[in-house]
């Protein structure tokens, strides 16, 4: 480690001559080493924790979702073409297929995102802040696996430049960056992200009889590799089976209620996560594990999570009482089995920068996210899922909630001063 540090000191570029290079160097160095800066003013000792550790906790809480998502991309593909339909059959193929889909998304997100981040950090003359660590881990998880990479790049660039850097960088943004990237794609290129057909990857079209498509990674890298190892390879030609339907549980729920959903997916399957959907949102136990990590380490606000779950449950229960459409009749607890409710409340709503900042405000913020998320999902026919919009909407109103809470506090302080 000492040698590595000496090596770093040797290659340090000049800050004045090469600001961008120095920013890059600084980012890399502080990744390897916590620097030796000592306190100069104020408190002489400082807490061991820093922003890097807080942010990386969220990323680590997402890793299980990544692993499961990679498998599920492959699993859904092979279910569609009717091969290796068992959960553990063709594991290597499923993981290889999933990796081939998610790695390019991950790489493009980070190339574009980190590029913009580094550029602005160098331009402003401060070190790289860790904000994109979490955004960059979240973005691939909320995209459909087949998304065209250029659209992804445009979406990420939009979110970072207009959503974050225009406001002053990490800690200053009004809206959640990951959701901003998604909402940009959602409204600009609706065909690639909404609708039923997009959630199963590697098909010519999401209908029976369509051919399965494989890219060069599968054909020229994984196939020879698996042949060498004596494993089964990707099929040369395969077509989608006749019984296939690309419908997501949510679209089924909207048209036919809970019965339509359970006719295709059992509740256990929905909970386990072997269903079509965005990469990260499918497996509920893994999201709950992530939630446990965030809550135990105190990184996410328990008030927002509790508020969100409570708000969603109460709204869904009230809609149960109304029961006008099939979707309204879905028992309130099954709403957490569907779509991205848990994922959004755990990882998106709890972003500390865009959420409310007062304890009381966090409750209100969480409750309203739960409320709007369910309302959009159940009542609005135009959008298949409401969490993205609910959270962005409440991001916009979080400062207002804080303002009201603080004004209440000031009023209480004033009344105390008069006594």
């Amino acid at each position: 480690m000492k040698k590595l540090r000496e090596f770093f000191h040797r290659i340090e570029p000049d800050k004045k001559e090469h600001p961008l290079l120095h920013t890059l160097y600084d980012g890399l160095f502080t990744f390897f080493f916590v620097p030796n800066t000592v306190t100069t003013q104020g408190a002489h000792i400082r807490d061991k924790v820093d922003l890097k550790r807080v942010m990386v906790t969220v990323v680590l809480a997402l890793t299980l979702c990544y692993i499961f998502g990679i498998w599920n991309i492959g699993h859904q593909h092979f279910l569609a073409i009717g091969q290796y339909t068992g959960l553990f059959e063709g594991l290597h193929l499923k993981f290889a297929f999933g990796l081939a889909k998610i790695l390019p998304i991950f790489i493009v997100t980070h190339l574009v995102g980190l590029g913009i981040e580094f550029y602005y950090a160098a331009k402003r003359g401060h070190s790289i802040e860790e904000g994109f660590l979490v955004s960059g881990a979240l973005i691939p998880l909320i995209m459909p696996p087949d998304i065209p990479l250029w659209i992804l790049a445009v979406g990420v660039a939009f979110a970072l430049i207009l959503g974050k850097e225009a406001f002053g960088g990490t800690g200053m943004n009004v809206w959640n960056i990951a959701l901003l990237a998604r909402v940009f794609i959602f409204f600009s290129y609706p065909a690639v992200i909404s609708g039923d057909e997009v959630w199963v990857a590697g098909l010519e079209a999401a209908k029976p009889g369509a051919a399965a498509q494989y890219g060069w990674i599968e054909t020229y890298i994984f196939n020879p590799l698996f042949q060498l190892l004596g494993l089964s390879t990707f099929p040369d030609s395969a077509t989608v089976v006749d019984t296939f339907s690309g419908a997501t549980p949510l679209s089924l729920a909207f048209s036919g209620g809970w019965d339509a959903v359970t006719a295709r997916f059992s509740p256990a399957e929905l909970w386990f996560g072997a269903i079509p959907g965005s990469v990260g949102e499918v497996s509920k136990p893994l999201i709950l594990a992530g939630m446990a990590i965030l809550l135990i380490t105190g990184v996410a606000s328990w008030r927002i999570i509790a508020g969100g779950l409570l708000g969603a449950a109460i709204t869904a229960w009230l809609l149960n009482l109304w029961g006008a459409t099939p979707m309204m009749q879905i028992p309130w607890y099954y709403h957490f089995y569907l779509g991205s409710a848990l994922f959004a409340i755990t990882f998106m709503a709890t972003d500390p920068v865009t959420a409310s900042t007062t304890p009381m405000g966090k409750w209100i913020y969480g409750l309203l996210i739960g409320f709007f998320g369910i309302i959009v999902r159940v009542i609005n026919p135009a959008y298949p899922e409401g969490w993205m919009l609910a959270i962005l909407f409440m991001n916009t109103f979080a400062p207002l909630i804080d303002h009201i809470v603080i004004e209440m506090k000031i009023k209480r302080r004033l009344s105390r001063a008069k006594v």
Partner: protein
Amino acid sequence: MKRVLFSAFFFYSSALHAQSVEEVLPKFHALIAGLTFLFLIFYIGVPQYALYRARGWVGDRKRRYSRPTRVLPVRLPDYVRGKKVHILRQGHDIALSGVPRNKLIDRTIRHYAIQPTNFRGIFPIPKLTVQVGDRVKAGDVLYYQRYQPKIQHVAPVSGEITAINRGRKRSIIEVVIAADEQTEYKPLQPPDWKNSSREELVEFLLQCGAWPLFNQRPYDIIPPIDAVPRDIFISTFSTAPLAPDYDMIVNGHGEAFQMGLNVLTRLTSGKVHLGLNANGIYPPASEYTEATGVEKHWFYGVHPTGNVGVQIHHIAPIRPGDVVWTLTVQQVIQLGKIWTEQKWVADRVIAITGAGAEETGYVRTKVGANIGELIGEPHEKTRYISGDVLSGETKAPHQFLNWQHEMVSCIPEGDYFEPFGWLIPSRVAPSRSRTLANFVFPNKVFDGDTNTHGEKRAFVMSDDYDGLLPMDIPLYHLMKAILVNDYDKMEQLGIKELSEEDVALAEWRCTSKQPLQQILRRGLEMWREQEM
């Protein structure tokens, strides 16, 4: 270990042939729960912390009776039974090693200094009445304030003025006195505290140089001479890290302490409030509990409960326009000795503390003692701090203890690189974040060092400061109001109730390493300029 792995393998191998999700689900749940548990154990560093040598608390006289919890009822010690106790549930005790031992250390201290920079608001440079080479007695005037010549600062010891050190823009930073072996005192004739008028008392206090003993809140300044404080507050305990034992300090000075309180009752239009410690196993010293003529308030809670600002907030908060005074216990004793001994006895008991201290304990000395002579042999890799580690000031061995401080904290400098310290910490340090295992081992005591453990960032985590300030003040929003120069909001959110030491704990905790004390002082100075 092998058996565990084998049984796990057999447990899960049967699942590989499962055809439906229902068969797999229970095992999946068990696997995920196990993995999450293992991840948490290793990620927050339980092995590191478990292997770290735990040092016990040093000395049990001041051990806490019990720890306050956020919700559950607290167990109060017997000696406060039937009394009203302010129970403060917020705050945090940073457990550092080097708690001062209950013994006196013998140190010969020859050099003392009065430092104009210790007093806020002396503007411009004060007018010196002595020169290098002059001889002074304890109680002789050294300098007075230019705009308010009645406020004089006097020598704590008798001896020769050896240096007048100047800082930026020719400001005076130290008036150094080489002390005689036997202190000669200038005799004082204090008026009768009971029967003379307040004006006579004030006139005498100004004349004998005792005025700088008073500290005015808000702003922490020497009060203007015509101010009448609404109340006077004295905290008789400190909860700061490594804080001295105030029972040790008052020991043998009961009479002077009571006399100081008597004088104070004459100076305020309101009351003199004494904050008493309800945290210890044993009751606080009888000098405190049996003091007369004052209001006594019991406080139970962790740091910053002992801070006088926090106590004011719970006894009688500072409202807009209010002015209160605060004193430390040693300053009250010093004030009392003007009457009991008829001279300027600027004695102090100073605690030498911290992991970097050669020997911890207490030193009997006077105000403004030389740091190097206090600590013994200085060490290069140690930082010497006048005051506590949260809100004190760094001092070189040739510098001097600040006027209001009662301890020297010696902690190791932390100028080391830590490979992947943010991900897999190889060193342990105090922390309140649950991303580290400190919360699993609440009784571990750490050396602590001056490393910042990360770089400065923008405000991100909004709940960092929650539960660190037992006052009705939203610290996060107050800081943001100061940063955007929002005068009204600052005041409405309670900036005038705060002092640096009250936000120091939140600054320690801040994930983004923001300088909260500096920001707060900026806001306070902005307001002070407005009111001048």
